[in-house]
């Protein structure tokens, strides 16, 4: 099933009367890496959760594919800031995503080992996943998602608590996943990472998309005051963040 482009119109999420998404309009093309930037509480993570179906929006629409269909049952994956590491071996953790797809255990194991080699964790296949470092755990989480060959991968601050070398390893894997044909939408607070990884930037503030522009244009000529102040590191009081 063709699930991209994705057109989001006037998406709102208002739990208990508090407006978290206040009318998001966004279009995701079929290829590339889009970085979502914005201050804390802007609604970035909620937007990702809404796209992958973990949160039911209060109103608005999401049209998947050129035909504008409903949310697909497969093809959308998400990697979280603190990924789940089950008390089992690294190999079992990476192959976990194939279980709901009905892949046989032997085949899961074979594909899992191949994937671990791609992310540089082949020598840790038999170790407990919880004994991996933070960077290794994040690589494992990316490998788990990649193994299911998603068409759209949502990443919620995957390098937030990693050191520069671990972040670089994660960024390398993200680029490979993109080269493999997966569309990526990623939340980050790291402006350097945004320039290194992103094709375009979605800047959010107050539950809305303030601007959606190519990376170079965003940093050279931010259109909104919020974006300009965010880049300068000056969070405005009037945004009530």
């Amino acid at each position, binding site marked *: 099933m063709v699930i991209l482009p994705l057109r989001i119109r006037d998406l709102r999420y208002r739990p208990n009367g508090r407006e978290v998404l206040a009318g998001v309009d966004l279009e995701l093309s079929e290829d590339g890496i889009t970085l979502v930037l914005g201050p804390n509480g802007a609604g970035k993570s909620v937007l990702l959760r809404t796209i992958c179906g*973990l949160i039911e929006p209060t109103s608005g629409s999401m049209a998947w594919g050129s035909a504008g269909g409903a949310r697909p049952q497969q093809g*959308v994956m*998400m990697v*979280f800031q603190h990924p*789940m590491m*089950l008390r089992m071996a690294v190999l079992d953790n990476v192959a976990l995503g194939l279980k*709901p797809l009905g892949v046989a255990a032997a085949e899961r194991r074979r594909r899992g080992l191949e994937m671990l080699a791609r992310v540089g964790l082949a020598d840790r296949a038999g170790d407990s996943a919880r*004994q991996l470092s933070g960077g290794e755990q994040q690589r494992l989480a990316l490998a788990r998602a990649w193994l299911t060959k998603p068409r759209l991968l949502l990443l919620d601050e995957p390098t937030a608590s990693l050191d520069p070398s671990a972040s670089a390893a994660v960024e390398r894997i993200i680029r490979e996943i993109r080269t493999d044909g997966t569309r990526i939408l990623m939340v980050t607070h790291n402006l350097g990472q945004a320039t290194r990884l992103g094709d375009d930037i979605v800047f959010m503030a107050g539950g809305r998309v303030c601007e959606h522009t190519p990376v170079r244009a965003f940093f050279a000529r931010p259109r909104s005051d919020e974006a300009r102040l965010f880049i300068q590191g000056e969070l405005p009081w009037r945004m009530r963040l």
Partner: protein
Amino acid sequence: MFPVSSPPMSAFSATFSDAFTLLASFDHTVAQIVALSLQVSGAAVALGTLIGLPLGACIAVGRFPGKSTLSVLINGMMGLPSVVVGVVVYLFLSRSGPFGGLGMLYSPAAMVVAQTLLVVPLMAAITRQVVEDVWARYAEELQVMRFSWWDSVTTLLHDCRHSLLVAVLAGLGRAMSEVGAVMIVGGNIDGATRVMTTAIALETSKGDLPLAIALGVVLIVIILALNALAYALRHWAMRRFG
């Protein structure tokens, strides 16, 4: 002046001395009672594990009307009086009861049924709490991976397996120390349905304290040994799997 007498202390010491003599000589009666106790409680805990753990995990993961009520009910049933369970099982298994035709009353099987009913709520309630805490952390990721409800239950049970030893141990402790229900449905028949707790109660009432104390010592040693084993296993697992 009242004479200072030493006989009570002598009798006390003699009772313990006789009890340890019984243990040291591997007394046949003691061995038979201990073996039956382990068989009955072991079977009840095995059944309790098969029923209580999945039940607790299903309540933790499931989203259905009445979930809170069911959780409160299961928690409340942890303190179910064993004599009440004994009477209910007795009514069901007695000749005039719905399962009277099975002829199970006053048999080890009836004792297993009664003990299973006692341990299932306890094991389910502990499991629900343990799994619910983990589910709160993992739910989103399992949902993103399109895990079915049942796959989530089995995955979480496997992930919590070391913590759930506590539930199994709690069930074992309750089963082995229980006396009211097995007395009612087993009848405490010598050589057939006499277990450690019912034997201790009987021998104490008869005044045969050495046998009662010997059985009490065995009961405590077994429970302590199993707890020590579980502690060591959990400690090893935490180091191995994190």
